[in-house]
């Protein structure tokens, strides 16, 4: 597979994503500069974590208008696989590819530690390699990760099975204590209606090697690889 990682001014997890795809998975990966509009035929685009534009105004609000975002939005709207991690998730809600918003953590603290997540849905290009209802460990590092959505919009997210990850305790229980930021319904990651765009606050790209404390994030990328293979095979058939 060929992966593109967009670098914005202030991105700081772009190299983590690059290293995981290149050195752990031995797959093709390219950096894409935010001022470019060329996605270089990548099959998965990653909007990485960090503090694009210093988080000025609102997290992700300014990056969302970078030149490359027009190509990224077009790519996603035509079915391309798009993964927004942390600051990337914030960009996805800001540009409307995903519903809701990410507001200040309810503790007002920047939270940087490992969390447990329950994989709620394996029916997606991003989670098909996980076991059903698996409990995984990934790091978080954010100040604005409190997922906000209400009413019909939230009901639809839940009814459509578009919540892929929820914060939980080690045993997989969805508790208030295991929710690091106050997110509604312990939501940590969601997909769009077409299920080709995933936004998540935890960092799977920083959990792909034993030395980093967890390899549980690798399966997000292995899922994408499997999904792309299926697509290619289906296309040739």
């Amino acid at each position: 597979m060929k992966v593109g990682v967009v670098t914005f001014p202030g991105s700081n997890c772009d190299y983590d994503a690059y290293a995981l795809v290149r050195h752990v998975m031995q797959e093709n990966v390219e950096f894409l500069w935010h001022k470019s509009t060329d996605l270089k035929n990548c099959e998965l685009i990653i909007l990485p974590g960090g503090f694009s534009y210093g988080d000025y105004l609102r997290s992700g609000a300014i990056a969302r208008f970078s030149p490359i975002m027009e190509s990224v939005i077009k790519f996603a709207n035509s079915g391309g696989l798009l993964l927004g991690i942390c600051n990337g998730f914030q960009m996805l809600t800001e540009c409307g590819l995903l519903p809701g918003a990410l507001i200040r953590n309810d503790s007002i603290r920047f939270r940087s530690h490992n969390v447990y997540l329950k994989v709620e849905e394996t029916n997606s290009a991003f989670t098909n390699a996980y076991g059903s209802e698996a409990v995984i460990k990934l790091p978080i590092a954010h100040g604005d990760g409190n997922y906000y959505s209400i009413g019909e919009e939230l009901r639809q997210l839940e009814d459509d099975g578009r919540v892929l990850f929820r914060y939980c305790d080690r045993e997989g229980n969805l508790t208030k204590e295991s929710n690091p930021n106050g997110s509604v319904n312990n939501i940590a990651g969601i997909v769009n209606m077409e299920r080709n765009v995933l936004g998540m606050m935890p960092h799977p790209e920083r959990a792909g090697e034993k030395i980093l404390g967890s390899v549980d994030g690798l399966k997000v990328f292995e899922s994408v690889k499997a999904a792309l293979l299926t697509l290619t095979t289906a296309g040739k058939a």
Partner: protein
Amino acid sequence: MTGTLKKATVYVKLKDGVLDPEGKTIQKALSQMGYAEFLSVRTGRFFELEIEANGSDIDSRIDEVCSKLLANPVIENYIVEKK
């Protein structure tokens, strides 16, 4: 020819019902300081804009700027004050 210079102030605030942890913390601090009658604090921010106005669509231009960038309509409201 350049247009006339107009000024506007835009106030952006979280919608009612959206959690404002900063406001809540400030309220708690006030209460501890002996100002217990200040029951609620909601925070926000404002923007002072200077606009070179050439056409008559200045109001809709300001509106666009507010809803596209200055405020996130999912969680925030805004008020425009023209001078």
